[in-house]
């Protein structure tokens, strides 16, 4: 075999050389392929890094955006609350102004200037004109609230009742009815107060006073120890007026009553 080897032909050598060259080429190609793959991998890794960075930046931006949105929503909510408050305030100021206007109008009609002096220097006292108009609804509401604040519950009720009878189409009717109930409550007449609160809730269900009226009834029942009936009314506030402040109060009361 050694002799055979020694006597290998030039062709054999050439074949061998060719094989070696092929192998070298394959190895070179393989090495080249690895380099390319590595290069590709590095590129991929770099790309992934870039994407990761981008994602991180995007994430940060998103968080900031969410924060901004949250802050904006909070600010909007606060502004909304302020606007609501201001609106309520403006409404009250308008009502107050209307009450004042009504009072002044009534005074102007009621007080007739004395006739021009006819030689007599003494001024005559103002005289009341016959058939002076009754106070308007805003004035009556104002008077009633003032009387109630002073603890004059009967006088307050009279003013609110006048409003109901003289101005049955007024926007202030639910309000007047509600304050009649409050006047009864202030006077310690729980039975009458309950019945008028019930009337407010029944006759004016879309009024802002309706959930308060039901809540007041429920509270009175709770204080009187009638827990079951109180629960029913607290639940009624939550079901009928879920967005009202009284619904939150009622939910807390129901938790306490459990």
């Amino acid at each position, binding site marked *: 075999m050694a002799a055979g080897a020694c006597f290998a032909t030039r062709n054999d050598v050439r074949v061998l050389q060719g094989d070696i060259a092929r192998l070298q080429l394959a190895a070179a190609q393989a090495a080249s392929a690895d380099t390319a793959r590595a290069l590709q991998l590095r590129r991929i890794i770099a790309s992934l890094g870039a994407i990761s960075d981008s994602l991180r930046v995007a994430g940060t931006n998103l968080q900031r955006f969410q924060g901004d949105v949250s802050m904006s929503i*909070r600010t909007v*909510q*606060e502004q909304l*609350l*302020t606007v609501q*408050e*201001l609106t*309520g*305030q403006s409404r*009250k*100021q308008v009502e107050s102004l209307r009450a004042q206007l009504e009072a002044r109008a009534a005074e102007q009609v009621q007080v007739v200037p004395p006739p021009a002096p006819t030689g007599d220097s003494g001024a005559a006292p103002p005289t009341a004109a016959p058939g002076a108009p009754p106070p308007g609804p805003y004035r009556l509401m104002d008077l009633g609230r*003032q009387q109630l*604040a*002073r603890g004059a519950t009967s006088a307050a009720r009279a003013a609110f009742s006048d409003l109901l009878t003289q101005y049955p189409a007024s926007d202030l009717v639910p309000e007047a009815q509600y304050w009649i109930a409050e006047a009864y409550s*202030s006077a310690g007449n729980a039975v009458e107060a309950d019945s008028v609160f019930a009337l407010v809730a029944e006759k004016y269900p879309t009024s802002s006073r309706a959930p*308060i009226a039901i*809540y*007041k009834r429920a*509270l009175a029942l709770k204080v009187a120890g009638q827990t079951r009936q109180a629960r029913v009314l607290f639940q009624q506030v939550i079901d009928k007026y879920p967005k009202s*402040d*009284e619904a*939150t*109060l009622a939910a*807390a*009361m129901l*938790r*306490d009553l459990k």
Partner: protein
Amino acid sequence: MPFRSIRWYGVPCPCLLLVAALSLCPVPAVAQDTIPAGVRVGLTYDPSTRPGVFVTAVAGEHGDSVRAILARDLDFGDRLTVISAEAGPPPSGRFNYELYLKLGASAIVQASVTRQGSLHVAVHDVAAKRVLNVADFAFNGSAPLSAAWRMAVHRASDEVERWITSTRGIAASRIAFVRDQRLWFVDSDGANLTPVGVGGIALSPAWHPTGRYIAYASMADDGTHINVRDLGTGQTRRIPSLGGTNITPAFSPDGSTLLFSAGDDGTDLYAVAPFGGEAPRRVTFGRGTPTSSPTFSPDGRKIAYISGRLGHPEVYITDADGTNAELLTESPSGDRPYRASPDWSPDGRSVAFTSQEGPNLQVMVISMRDRKIRQLTGDARNEDPSWAPDGRHVVFTSTRSGAKQLWVLDTESGRTRQLTRGAGVARMAAWSPRMEQP
């Protein structure tokens, strides 16, 4: 206004001579028997005047101190003018009412410390020439000049004021306040300044209507808490915290409810039983805005408090059950004043509060009847008003003497007096109810 002083011209040692005359000229006190039927001669108090009152020398142990306390209390009450004259010896026999009348006295206060350990007080009606009222006030074994002994004399002063004016005085009351982050007490006349060791940083003291308990907020490493301290036993109960900030407690007039401000993102008012019971119940709806500093109306039906719902702090009122919330202190459109520390007057007629007026804070009062606002202070920075039990005097923090100190203002006459002195900032005063007999 100081005591009314008597001026005498051309007479040597006038006061002594006069006092000697007052003491030694007996006049039979039987003139009232001669008054015709249907005619009333006697002491009639007119709230717009300050009748003169003469406090005679006081017989018995520490009589001079008793007289000084009585006279000062009556003066600080702002309803009477204390006639300042040498007392001379304690009077004996019948009074020469005519001479007291010439002094400008409508009433004479005659007191003595008895051997049985009480203060015997008689008030004479000078015009009617008779004794108006007599009573004994027990010292209950307290050491002379001690805090309890002084309080007994204050109680006597308050009764004397009631006999003469039909309105009880406020001498037997104390003021709780915060100085250097600690809780302190001081008597209504500025005496008996006492620190209360409650631990941590103390804030916003509030009295229970009995005067036995005090609620306050405390700040420690574990957050803010509301505490109720029994001043009799020294024991403190911590109200379960609601998380976040827990501040500005206030008792209801019947003492059964404690309101306080709590929350994380904005605060709201919560009601709780101060001595245990139901869980805290929410009362207000600030919706993320700060709500604090509650104060009950005297009938317990309403609450005034501070809310930032308008974007700046204003005083609101609501029913005690949380319904019917409305703005109390309206401001002209565009104004955004800072308003804080409301305190409902004991007569229910008004709410005192702090308001930003130009660069300074001032104490204001709003009438609950017509919602008209009146400014009570004008000098320097004045804040944190708290009503005295008479609904006439207010204690507040002021910088008018330099550092922040407590001052007392008579809201009717405008007369002021400094209550606290010394180093440190005194603030957050809370005037106690009248301290009843122990």
